[in-house]
């Protein structure tokens, strides 16, 4: 501990603290621009100059280490004069047109200029003009306003892990830019908008749409990945104009993924429903709610009466709220059906679970791991901020290893990796278990030959004190998901460490807690579609894009006597297979709860009124149950529903978390004929909301799916990258463009799911036929 005085206040700070850390601790504000607590120290803006006793010159608080007995003056003549001098320099070349600047009202330069700037500029010379840059569809530039603090540059290097921006040229010709003709394509790019202290980098979708002070700020929770990022949603006249991070060190820190930040555009999509719709005599009509609910109730009741409750199935989006899931489950059970599932993209449901599968640790604990093995994850795109946490950890020495079917650059150093075809993943993981068992002298009696790569991973894991095994979406969606789960459990036991699931969606943990899983004799999502039902209730999902086998889902829904869809959106597919579409509120227009990967219960309120006659999903389900005269549906609020399910209040951790699995028929090698599909669900195709976010759909991450293969596989097929190929499973081929992906194993073809162009290819897993087109 070091003792110092700031403006006469005595305090103690930890060794290694800087003056700005200490000031923060003392509650003293020191003006600054380049300093940011999550970024390396640049000390270039010089705004934070303060006086330090015995130092002849003012010193930058952000970079000056505290020494014992130091006396700091942040408001002395020397300090204030220095700060004013810097402010004058910052303003000479900065446009003084705040009223037309998009940052106006939330600009650090504007705020500080009021406190430190002179009233009249002594600068009578010509001002500098800097040309704007095209950074892509999300970030807009006004580079003349740039003050060269380099926060954005450091963000891309240090947090996003890939230097996509730099400061080119020198002196006052210095310019922040991407490489010639390049854009900023990181899945975290929007954070540079928040980081920019002036109006140089602003949100392109939000550009000039509103002034910050006209917007109401409401807190919410992201409905996308399983992190559950905390949001500030900014609203005017019942329209969402912008989404910003709500800082929560335990979850998203001060960051948001671009998906979390820009998906709100989908809320304003032209495909939003405003009234319930019924298909009568093959024609869609907008109807009143009571009519629609009557219809839906009768349709479901009729099927249940006629064919038994089991003839009805419910497909629930893992992005639905806990309350919606709870009521959907009760409703199904009220109809006599145990057929309900939210795990729409999974295909292996075997094994018995001891409790609700989860991350296995707190999110914040990820940073403290010293070893991590990530199995089956498109880490950066499926879990952008978890990837970021591991990247920061890796920088401090955490050894991260990977077992996966794709070798995408994670933008962090890896201690080991095993890349293999999907069917080979269980065998590869077993190798690591075996190697670890040998190193630890533990028993593991499976017959596998340990490769040097597996040994390397095991050696890394064994050498740590605090390791974890993390199973990604790809592992959960794998045809042998239970085997992977079981092997991870064995490995964790051998290592004496934790294991868990990164989590597919906002409510993947909540879905279990809500009971949106089949009960005894109920059918899981896969079987509900493989053994088509007479009637379906589809809640929040677009089954053809959100299920493990979209083609099969579409067929099942089309053959059903009745399909009741509850969704905020209209889609061509639903108009074809549904007979009633009920507009339910997206997360911004309803209260509800998501339980994130670490089991944290996060409830939120609506940020604005529902669009048109849209109603919160929980209310629709409750009234539907009322119309069906089912018991136990007298909830007054979503809180009542949550209370009924969880008992406790929001913000707490779920108590039924347990990753243990048993009764798994462990099977290692299963070789597939033909080319094995490696399917990811691209970040911006993953759910109905983001699929409708226009700007995100223009990013590189939303490029149309291609058929990616390694060079050997392409050569064997005699196709060149860039040429079309015919890809098929059974009949109905799709024509895709072949592309080179050097990181794939031989005889694999990587084709994204969640997109209409690949719907015909069916399951996420298994073999495909690829031939030159």
């Amino acid at each position, binding site marked *: 501990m070091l003792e110092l005085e700031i403006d006469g206040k005595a305090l103690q700070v930890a060794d290694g603290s800087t003056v700005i850390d200490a000031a923060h601790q003392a509650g003293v504000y020191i003006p600054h621009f380049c300093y940011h607590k999550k970024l390396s120290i640049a*000390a*270039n803006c010089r705004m934070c100059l303060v006086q330090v006793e015995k130092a002849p010159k003012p010193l930058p608080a952000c970079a000056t280490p505290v020494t014992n007995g130091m006396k700091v003056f942040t408001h002395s003549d020397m300090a204030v004069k220095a700060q004013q001098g810097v402010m004058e*320099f910052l303003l000479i070349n900065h446009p003084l047109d705040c009223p037309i600047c998009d940052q106006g009202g939330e600009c650090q330069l504007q705020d500080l200029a009021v406190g430190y700037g002179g009233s009249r500029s002594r600068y009578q010379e010509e001002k500098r003009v800097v040309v704007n840059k095209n950074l892509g569809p999300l970030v807009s530039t006004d580079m003349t306003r740039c003050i060269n603090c380099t926060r954005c540059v450091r963000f891309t290097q240090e947090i996003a892990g890939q230097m996509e921006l730099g400061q080119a040229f*020198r002196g006052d010709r210095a310019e922040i830019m991407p490489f010639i003709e390049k854009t900023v394509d990181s899945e975290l790019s929007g954070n540079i908008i928040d980081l920019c202290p002036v109006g140089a980098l602003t949100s392109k979708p939000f550009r000039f749409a509103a002034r910050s002070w006209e917007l109401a700020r409401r807190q919410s929770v992201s409905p996308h990945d399983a992190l559950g990022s905390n949001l500030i949603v900014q609203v005017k006249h019942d329209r969402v104009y912008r989404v910003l991070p709500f800082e929560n060190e335990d979850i998203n820190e001060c960051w948001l993924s671009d998906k979390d930040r820009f998906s709100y555009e989908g809320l304003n999509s032209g495909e939003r429903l405003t009234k319930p719709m019924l298909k009568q005599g093959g024609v869609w009509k907008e109807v009143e709610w009571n009519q629609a609910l009557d219809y839906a109730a009768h349709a479901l009741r009729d099927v249940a009466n006629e064919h038994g409750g089991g003839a009805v199935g419910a497909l629930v989006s893992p992005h639905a709220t806990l309350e919606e899931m709870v009521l959907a489950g009760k409703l199904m059970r009220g109809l006599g059906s145990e057929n309900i599932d939210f795990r729409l993209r999974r295909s292996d449901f075997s094994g018995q679970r001891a409790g609700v599968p989860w991350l296995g640790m707190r999110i914040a604990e990820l940073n403290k791991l010293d070893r991590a093995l990530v199995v089956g994850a498109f880490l950066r795109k499926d879990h952008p901020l978890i990837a970021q946490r591991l990247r920061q950890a890796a920088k401090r020495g955490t050894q991260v290893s990977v077992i996966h079917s794709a070798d995408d650059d994670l933008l962090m150093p890896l201690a080991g990796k095993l890349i293999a075809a999907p069917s080979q993943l269980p065998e590869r993981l077993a190798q690591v278990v075996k190697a670890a068992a040998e190193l630890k002298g533990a028993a593991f009696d499976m017959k596998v030959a340990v490769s040097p790569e597996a040994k390397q991973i095991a050696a890394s894991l064994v050498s740590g004190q605090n390791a974890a095994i993390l199973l990604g979406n790809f592992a959960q969606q794998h045809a042998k998901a239970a085997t992977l789960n079981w092997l991870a459990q064995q490995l964790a036991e051998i290592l004496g460490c934790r294991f868990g699931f990164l989590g597919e969606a906002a409510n993947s943990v909540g879905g279990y807690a809500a009971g949106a899983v089949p009960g005894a004799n109920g059918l899981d999502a896969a079987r509900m579609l493989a053994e088509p039902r007479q009637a379906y209730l589809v809640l929040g999902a677009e089954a053809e894009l959100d299920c493990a086998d979209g083609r099969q889902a579409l067929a099942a829904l089309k053959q059903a006597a009745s399909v009741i869809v509850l969704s905020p959106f209209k889609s061509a597919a639903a108009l074809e297979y549904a007979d009633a579409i009920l507009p339910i509120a997206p997360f911004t227009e309803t209260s509800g709860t998501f339980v994130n990967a670490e089991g944290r219960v996060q409830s939120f309120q609506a940020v604005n009124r529902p669009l048109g006659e849209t109603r919160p999903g929980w209310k629709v389900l409750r009234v539907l149950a009322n119309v069906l005269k089912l018991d136990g549906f007298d909830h007054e609020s979503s809180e009542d529903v949550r209370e009924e399910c969880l008992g406790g209040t929001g913000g707490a951790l779920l108590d039924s978390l347990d990753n243990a699995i048993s009764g798994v028929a462990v099977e290692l090698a299963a070789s597939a004929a033909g080319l094995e599909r490696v399917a990811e669900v691209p970040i911006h195709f993953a759910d109905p909301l983001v699929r409708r976010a226009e700007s995100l759909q223009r990013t590189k991450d939303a490029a149309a799916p291609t058929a990616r293969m390694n060079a050997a596989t392409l050569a064997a097929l005699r196709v060149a990258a860039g040429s079309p190929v015919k890809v098929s499973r059974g009949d109905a081929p799709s024509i895709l463009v072949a592309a080179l992906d050097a990181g794939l194993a031989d005889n694999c073809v990587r084709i994204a799911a969640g997109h209409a162009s690949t719907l015909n290819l069916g399951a996420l897993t298994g073999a495909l036929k690829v031939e030159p087109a």
Partner: protein
Amino acid sequence: MALIEAINPLLTAGWAKGDAGWGIKEYEARGGYQALKRILAEKMTQDQVIAEVKTSVLRGRGGAGFPTGLKWSFMPKGAPVKYVVCNTDEGEPGTFKDRDILRYDPHAVIEGMIIAGYAVGAALGYNYIHGEIFELYERFEQALAEARAAGYLGKNILGAGLDFDLFAHQGWGAYICGEESALLESIEGKKGQPRFKPPFPAQVGLFGKPTTINNTETFAAIPFVFRIGGSAYLDLGKPNNGGTKLFSVSGHVNKPGNYEVPMGTPFAKLLEMAGGMRGGRKLKAVIPGGSSAPVLSADIIMDCTLDYDSIAKAGSMLGSGAVIVMDETVCMVQALERLSWFYYEESCGQCTPCREGTGWLHKIIHRIEHGQGRPEDLDLLLELGGNIAGRTICALGDAAVLPVQGMLRHFRAEFEYHIEHKKCLVPREVQKAGSTFHTRMMAGAAC
């Protein structure tokens, strides 16, 4: 290059032979590599070597004059990987001594660096050579090959168990890379933007490892220190200003060039060695330590001796020993305008005061020179200077301001005259008499 006396035979004695004298044979014939051999033969300890350098009071020849032995002693003892770096970025206007050292005596630098490597426990060194003297970069690489072949570089040097290797790194046009931490960034393959200190290079230097950086002339002086002994070296100069130093004399003298003189030599003597004033004109002003040093008027400089203390007392700096001599034909506004352009042009761009301030300073001086000065400009210049100097990461900010302050201290009347009369105080005929001078900003100027 003119050279009157050669005091350090390992350094300037070889210069007499011009381009024929730089090779290893010639250097050895002058007694080169004897110092290294003696140190290794006598098994001097690292501490003894550093102590000897301390005794010599050899002060860094790169500009700041920091005692070299003391600098070496800052290197942490235990660290497994350390580096020695030589600063041949020589870009300070007026300085051209390191170029001649590499041209005529590259082995003196190599020997000095090996000794430094031994003293601080570094096994690898780099010499950063500015791009403009690329031919000498190539020559230095040849000299390295010679030294390697002769067993002075590489593993187990001279069979004494010492490992040290040395490479040349090329600059490519950036004055700021003379600043030691910018230079390290540059060796790491980045732009030359100085690092905030602390930590200093001796703690966190090249590739994050402890690093000693010295100027070319500093390293080149090392063999001679050991050849004659630390205290004899000190005695060559003045107390607290050990040894001899190279002075680069440029401008209005008859024989511009490098002159090796003992520290403490009167300025008048150096002027005489440089052949006196060109055309017999009157001395007006001298910038005694490279363009960053404040200018001194003729009467002041004529009373100075050439050492760190005397020049500092006169209100300037010995700096790199670059003596820019200006005669009565020079318009000081024009001279300052050119210098301020240089600092504007060379600012690395990271610190706000330097990035924005150097351009502002230049624009004001440019206006004054072009007859558009305002009465308040001079005070504004000084105030802006005060807001730049001492507020930046590196000393370029100060370097840009010192010339302004110096000029306004000694020649303010000339600036006032420009502002008031929109023309020069130095009559046109007088300026013409020194027709070798005008700067690029002549067009439309008030001179």
